[in-house]
């Protein structure tokens, strides 16, 4: 039998292989997104959101209504926090932001504010603060290198309360996880 040279049929077969691969990868991408963006409804004290599914989720305590951590991220697990803080009627979001940053400064190691500004995020006015801190396990038996964590807080005003939504993630993963956070932020209702 002859050694068949590249025929028309071969050409088609070749294209079909590429096509099938592209379809499979596209399906894989959608499947990946569906897992990563899968959410569970969360609701507490008049605030509702679609929290990421499969994350470690803390029960509400005090003014922290939601604290959820991605245990599948390396280093400092990506964490979303939603807090509801009582404020004065005429307080501005920048005042609350400064209060929040002071709390961070007290609680976090090597806290540094990177920048802050008024923004409109998903149609809402908010005050955004970006910061960085170092997370190291306080347990002295642990000898790991501390991780550098980037954080972003959005302060929304809602009547006599401020809603502070935080996103903190390991420096390495911050950009990768930011889209997921905005999906969460978009789902936020109060």
């Amino acid at each position, binding site marked *: *039998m*002859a*050694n*068949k*040279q*590249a025929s028309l*049929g*071969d050409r*088609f*077969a*070749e294209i*079909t*292989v*590429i*096509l*099938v*691969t592209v379809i*499979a*990868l596209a*399906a*894989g*991408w959608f*499947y*990946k997104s569906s*897992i*990563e963006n899968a959410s569970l409804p969360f609701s507490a004290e008049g605030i509702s959101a679609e929290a990421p599914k*499969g994350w470690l989720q803390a029960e509400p305590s005090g003014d922290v209504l939601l604290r959820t951590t991605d245990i*599948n*991220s*390396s280093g400092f697990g990506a964490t979303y926090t939603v807090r509801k803080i009582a404020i004065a009627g005429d307080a501005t979001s920048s005042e609350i932001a400064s209060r929040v940053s002071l709390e961070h400064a007290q609680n976090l190691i090597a806290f540094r504010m990177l920048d802050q500004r008024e923004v409109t995020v998903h149609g809402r006015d908010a005050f955004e603060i970006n910061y960085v801190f170092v997370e190291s396990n306080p347990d002295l038996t642990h000898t790991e290198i501390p991780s550098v964590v980037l954080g972003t807080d959005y302060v929304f005003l809602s009547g006599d309360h401020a809603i502070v939504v935080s996103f903190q993630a390991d420096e390495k993963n911050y950009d*990768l996880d930011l889209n997921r956070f905005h999906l969460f932020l978009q789902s936020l209702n109060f």
Partner: protein
Amino acid sequence: MSEAKVIHERKHVWRDEILLIVSLVVFVGIVYVLDGAIQPVFTPNTLLLTGVFLALVPAAIWLTFFYLQDRAEPEPKGFVLGVFGLGALLAAAIGIPVVENLFRVSHWLRNDTMSVILGGILVVGFTQEFLKYAAVRYSIYNSGEFDEPTDGVIYATAAGLGYATVLNINFVVSNGGVDLGAGIIRMAVVALAQAAFSGITGYFLGRAKFESEQIWWMPLGITLAAVFNGVFNWLQGIVTRPTITLSGATTNTWMGLVLAAVVALLTTGIILWLVRRNIRSLEAGK
């Protein structure tokens, strides 16, 4: 090409495949025992270098057998080595970045059984199998050196081992050196699996070239290889999962090698049977 050329099976191909499987398992055993007995002390750099060296061993074994036994019927050695290199290159340049950085499988793949299987087939399986197919299809496939159906298996295995070698080097380097005893098992598993699934693609490629197959023939081959790939990874996860009791956890890493060896033998056996049947039917129809 000569009309008179007889289509025949290159018998040594199967010997090589089976020798690869057996000698890999033996080699792993030797390294494992030696590592345990001598407990060599390495500096981080020598550990890394030794790891990388071990990563090259599976491919080296196969290539050695291939070259030793191919004297009677010299296959152009340069082409086999070239396809091996191409498979390695595609793995390093496209395969690993796509799977790990673009799809970020470590972040979601091991979520649950469903994601292990689906992600393993759609993302990992298709990426790997397509690239190994491409290493053959866009290099040697249209040349005269691909002149028998069995050549598909040979070249695809070379591409698969190239891919596996890069996966293993990446495994060693990204872990900053590995424990040799445990690491060699994992490397042998990857080499066996990649070679076995490439064999499937190779069989389909061989038939695609020498027979007028339907348009779905080659896509079917890639898909089959990808499915095997994904299911194999899922099974690996199951058989190697340790059992925990308070007195300790079992280490089931060896089970992974057993699984890989069995899968590789079965795959090789089935392909062998298919190729033989195919050749017989071709000869009968001549």
